C-alpha cells in the first residue's frame, strides 16, 4: 500500500452504516473506494447533491452532474439535488455526520489550515470553512509530513486558519492522532511506522500510551 491508500483505507474505518459523509478533494475522495461491503454510506457533495455515485462509464458523462471537485459523477437510487443554500444549511446545521478533508497544517488545538499559502496563487476557501465549523465530526486525512519532510502537525498553525478548534482526528500514513483537551494523543501506528518516526515528523508533543496499536 502507498501512503494515500493507507490513509484512505484507515479513514474508511471511521464510517458507520447509515452515515451521511462529506469527502474533500484529493485523498478524502479515495475513501469512497474503501467503504466496507454491505455498509450504506451516503455521500454529500456541497455543490448540492446527496447520494453521490461512482464516476460514470466513459461516454455517459453529464455536464450537469458533478461533485464539489468538479468531477463528473453519477447518481444512485435515492439521490437528491438541492441548491447551494440548502446544501450549506444542511452542513451548517450539523446534519452531516462526518467530514473528511485534507490539510496543509493541523495543530494541537485542532486548528486547521488548508486554504491559503501567503505569496502563492489566490484560490479561495470554497466550502471548507463551513464544513469544518459545522460537521458533527471532522477528520483530517493527509500525508504526515510535506514532501521535504517538514512536519504538518504543529504546535500552532503558521498558515491562515480554515477553522479554529475544529479537528477531531488526524489520519496519516503513519498514525491516527486524536485531538483532546490534554493535547494530541497517538492512538494508532501505520503499517510500518514507529513511535520515534512519528515523533520525529510531528512538530508538537504527542501523548503516547505504549504499546500503541497498529492501524490494520
Amino acid at each position, binding site marked *: 500500500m502507498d501512503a494515500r491508500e493507507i490513509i484512505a483505507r484507515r479513514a474508511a474505518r471511521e464510517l458507520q452504516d447509515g452515515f451521511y459523509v462529506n469527502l474533500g478533494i484529493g485523498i478524502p475522495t479515495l475513501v469512497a473506494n474503501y467503504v466496507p461491503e454491505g455498509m450504506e454510506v451516503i455521500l454529500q457533495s*456541497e455543490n448540492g*447533491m446527496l447520494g453521490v455515485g461512482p464516476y460514470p462509464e466513459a461516454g455517459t458523462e453529464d*455536464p*450537469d452532474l458533478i461533485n464539489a471537485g468538479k468531477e463528473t459523477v453519477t447518481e444512485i437510487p435515492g439521490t437528491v439535488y438541492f441548491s447551494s443554500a440548502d446544501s450549506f444549511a444542511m452542513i*451548517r446545521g450539523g446534519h452531516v455526520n462526518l467530514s473528511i478533508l485534507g490539510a496543509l497544517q493541523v495543530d494541537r488545538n485542532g486548528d486547521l489550515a488548508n486554504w491559503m499559502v501567503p505569496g502563492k496563487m*489566490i484560490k479561495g476557501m470554497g466550502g471548507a470553512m*463551513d464544513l469544518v465549523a459545522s460537521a458533527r465530526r471532522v477528520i483530517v486525512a493527509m500525508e504526515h509530513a510535506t514532501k521535504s519532510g517538514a512536519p504538518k502537525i504543529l504546535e500552532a498553525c503558521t498558515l491562515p486558519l*480554515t477553522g479554529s478548534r475544529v479537528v477531531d482526528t488526524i489520519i496519516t500514513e503513519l498514525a491516527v492522532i486524536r485531538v483532546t483537551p490534554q493535547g494530541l494523543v497517538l492512538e494508532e501506528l501505520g503499517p510500518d511506522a514507529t513511535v520515534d518516526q512519528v515523533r520525529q515528523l510531528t512538530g508538537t508533543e504527542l501523548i503516547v500510551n505504549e504499546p500503541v496499536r497498529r492501524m490494520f
Partner: protein
Amino acid sequence: MNKIFPTAADALADLTDGATVMIGGFGLCGVPEDLIAATVAKGARNLHTISNNMGIDGVGLGLMLEAGMIASHIGSYVGENKLLEEMVIAGRLDLTLTPQGTLAERIRAGGAGIPAFFTPAGAGTIVAEGKEVREFKGRSYVMEEGLTADFALIKAWRADRMGNLVYRRTARNFNPVMATASRCTIAEVEEIVEPGELDPDSIVTPGIFVHRVVRWTGYNKRIERRTVRGGGK
C-alpha cells in the same frame, strides 16, 4: 403575463455600467452562457460581480474578466483563473473571498429580507476580521450581512412564461438562491413549456422571483474535469 424575451441581448438592454450582478453556476456547471456572452458583447463596464467562481481562462465568467468589465468580485473559489490573480495584485480588481456556505446564505438572506445573521463559518479566521463576533451557547459566530444585486443572471432547465423554473441535477447550485436576491432576475433556460406543465409541487423557483426568461441557444455545455469509471480522466 409573458416574461419571455426574444434574445439575451434584449433581456440585458438596461444593464448599465456599475451594476451589481449575480451570476449562477458552480465551476462551469449551471452557468448562464448566453447571458454572459451577451453581457460581454454589450460591453458594460465597472461591474460588481457576485458568483461562486470566476470561470476558467476563456470560459464562463472568465470571459467577462478578460473583457475587463469587472471592477469587484465576491466569491468563494477562484483557483481556476490565472488572470484574476494578476488583476488583483495589480489593484485592478477588488476581490472578496468568503466561505461558500456564507456566500450562499448571504444571498439567501438578501432575497429573504434578512439584513444579517450569525454563522460559525470563519470564526477564529481572517474571515472574521472587522466583523462582529458573538457567542451563542459557548460557541463563536460571525455576523454576516445579506447580499442583493441589480441583476441576477441564472441558468435553469425549464421555464414557463410566468417565470416558474425547475433545474437539472447539480446545475441547480447557486441559481435558485440568486434568483431571489436581485431587482431583475434573468433566467436562461433550455426549454419553455406552458403554464401548468411544470408540476406545482416541484417548481423550485416560483415566477415571482423571475423577471425575464430567455431561451438558451445551445452553446456546448463544458465539462471542467471529465472523470470516468476505471480511473480515466
